[in-house]
């Protein structure tokens, strides 16, 4: 028991809780992070788009026009400082392009491609404004486009103003937001994991302590487990274990007693034999008398050996499943014929009545059961008395009753009836009854021994074995 190998078990409680809690929490955090990042990005874009638009508008203020329609001539005077105000830092660069409605460059850089889009039907801004992504000399840019009507005393016209800004700032800001979010979420995950590990550790500590104390137990220590600190949920497990321990303890006790008694019982006839032989050799008793005594001793030892082996065999057969359906009546009659010489020797008034009784079991078990029952009865029946065997069946059970006119069972023996070798027995070892009971139990039945009393006297004993009938299907 101390060497018990770690059996294949389910997942550890700690891992179970960690996975069970961290997995959903982690998933939720991931979704949360992505959403947060997106929202932050949107907010940043909107804010920067606004400044971009503002710079486009301020450029629009600086345009003058002469003439109207196709003859309109535009003049611009955009100083560098006009844009500088809108540059958020020195990393992003701003460029602009002013062109006529027909796409003719009026001012600014020709590197910024002419806007050819259509205005959105209902953008977030007033009409004539749009934003889009583009590239200037290979750098990605964000562009605000403004269709600006220009009016002055000298004329009226329409220009397209595009202002582009490189993306460094927006990207830096977005990265910053992402890192901040991720840091905060990981911190949360770590805290949760630590708490789970700590709690599980604390919760399972009594279990580990109990296991350790069980492992350290002496091999034959089967006393009940005492674990006061154990969580209430584990109480049933401990109770069940204690019950198993109690049963094992009982079994072990019985087995110890059996081995002790059995070795005593086996040694006794050998000792007796030795004395008998030696006293015959020294001519203390006449040889014939000694031999008769020896013969009786040998018979006793033979019967004992047979019974002990029978008991072991019951245990062995109980594990095997190769049973068959047998007619108990046939077996009872065959055994009765076998034992008839013993019945005749005691001049018993013997009678038998049997009904067909199909029983599922091993033939040897049934024969041994019947033989022991009948043999016991013959042994205890007074010379010339009545001995009856009756096998009856009802719907589900067969009942085999052997009735003798013997002394019955004295009250003081009743408690130890099925214990072998109990002191004060008048019938020898008592193994016969134990064999009967073991077989009856193995076949799913039971055995009862009842004194037949009339007018305060015991007339004899009814030994009844009830066995379940084999189902006919």
């Amino acid at each position: 028991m101390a060497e018990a190998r770690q059996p294949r078990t389910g997942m550890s409680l700690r891992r179970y809780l960690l996975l069970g809690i961290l997995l959903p929490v982690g998933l939720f955090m991931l979704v949360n992070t992505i959403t947060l990042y997106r929202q932050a990005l949107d907010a940043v874009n909107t804010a920067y788009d606004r400044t971009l638009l503002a710079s486009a508008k301020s450029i629009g203020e600086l345009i003058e026009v002469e003439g109207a329609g196709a003859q309109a001539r535009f003049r611009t005077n955009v100083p560098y400082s006009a844009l500088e105000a809108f540059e958020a830092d020195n990393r992003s660069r701003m460029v602009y392009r002013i062109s006529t409605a027909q796409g003719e460059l009026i001012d600014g850089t020709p590197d910024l491609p002419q806007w050819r889009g259509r205005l959105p039907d209902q953008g977030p801004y007033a009409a004539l404004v749009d934003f889009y992504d583009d590239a200037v000399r290979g750098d990605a840019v964000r562009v605000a486009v403004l269709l600006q009507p220009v009016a002055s005393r000298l004329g009226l016209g329409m220009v397209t103003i595009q202002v582009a800004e490189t993306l460094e700032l927006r990207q830096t800001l977005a990265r910053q937001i992402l890192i901040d979010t991720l840091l905060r979420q990981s911190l949360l995950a770590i805290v949760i994991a630590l708490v789970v590990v700590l709690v599980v550790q604390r919760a399972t500590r009594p279990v580990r302590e109990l296991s350790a104390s069980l492992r350290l137990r002496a091999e034959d220590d089967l006393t009940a487990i005492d674990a006061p600190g154990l969580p209430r949920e584990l109480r049933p497990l401990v109770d069940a274990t204690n019950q198993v321990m109690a049963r094992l303890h009982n079994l072990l006790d019985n087995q110890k007693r059996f081995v002790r008694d059995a070795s005593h019982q086996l040694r006794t006839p050998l000792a007796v034999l030795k004395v008998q032989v030696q006293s015959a050799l020294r001519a203390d008793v006449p040889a014939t008398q000694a031999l008769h005594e020896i013969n009786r001793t040998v018979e006793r030892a033979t019967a004992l050996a047979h019974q002990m082996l029978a008991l072991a065999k019951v245990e062995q057969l109980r594990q095997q499943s190769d049973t068959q359906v047998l007619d108990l009546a046939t077996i009872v009659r065959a055994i009765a014929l076998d034992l008839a010489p013993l019945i005749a020797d005691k001049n018993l008034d013997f009678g038998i009545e049997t009904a067909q009784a199909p029983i599922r079991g091993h033939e040897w078990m049934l024969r041994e059961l019947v033989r022991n029952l009948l043999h016991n009865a013959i042994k205890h029946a007074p010379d010339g008395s009545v001995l009856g065997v009756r096998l009856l069946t009802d719907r589900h059970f067969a009942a085999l009753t052997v009735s003798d006119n013997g002394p019955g069972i004295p009250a003081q023996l009743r408690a130890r009836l099925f214990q072998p070798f109990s002191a004060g027995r008048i019938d020898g070892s008592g193994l016969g009854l134990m064999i009967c009971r073991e077989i009856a139990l193995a076949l799913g039945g039971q055995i009862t021994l009842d004194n037949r009393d009339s007018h305060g006297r015991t007339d004899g004993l009814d030994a009844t074995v009830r066995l379940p009938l084999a189902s006919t299907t």
Partner: protein
Amino acid sequence: MRLLLIEDDPALQTSLKRTLERRGMRVQPCGDGLQALDIWRLQQPDVVLLDLSLPGLDGLEVLAQARQSGLLTPVLILTARGTVGDRVIGLNTGADDYLAKPFDLDELEARIRALNRRSAGAGGENASDQVVCGPLRLDAASGAIQHGFKVLDLTPRELRMMRTLMERAGRAVAKEQLFDIVFPGEPDVQYEAIEVVAYRLRKKLGGIGVTLVTLRGLGYLLKADG
């Protein structure tokens, strides 16, 4: 009667040989399976006593080989393996009877004589063994039952019943089996008729030293008194 005793335990071999020879049998002991087969073939004994656990060749194997080579000698198996399984195997392999160790010497002698009688009755040479029970003797030649110099006055049915019981004296015979022997080919007769025969027989046997025991519902048994 010549016996072949195949048994490897020297103590048992010696005592069995001694006691069976005292009872008028000639015993050839042998402790080895292979050797035993040769002796069996050469000497053609009347009955073979066969122990199951042998060195050289297992007892069941000896029996199987003997039967295969056409040896029909009746075989009585002696063994300490007292299980039904062995019993069935033994009889299926061609054994004629079975006795579990430890056994009673009288029982052994009775079984040996019964086997010998059976083979003699089936055309064997040796018919010298007599069926006796107490003071009664079954005359092999006439089939009559003799009490001293007198012949018992029995009806044919009573005689058939007595013969069967005497051949198995001391052991019980089931009433169904007796019925078939006493009323052969008479299906109209009631089962109870056997009780009438037994009743008359018991009266005729009164006071001559044998008892016909009735096992109600089971059968009958003849035993010598005393």
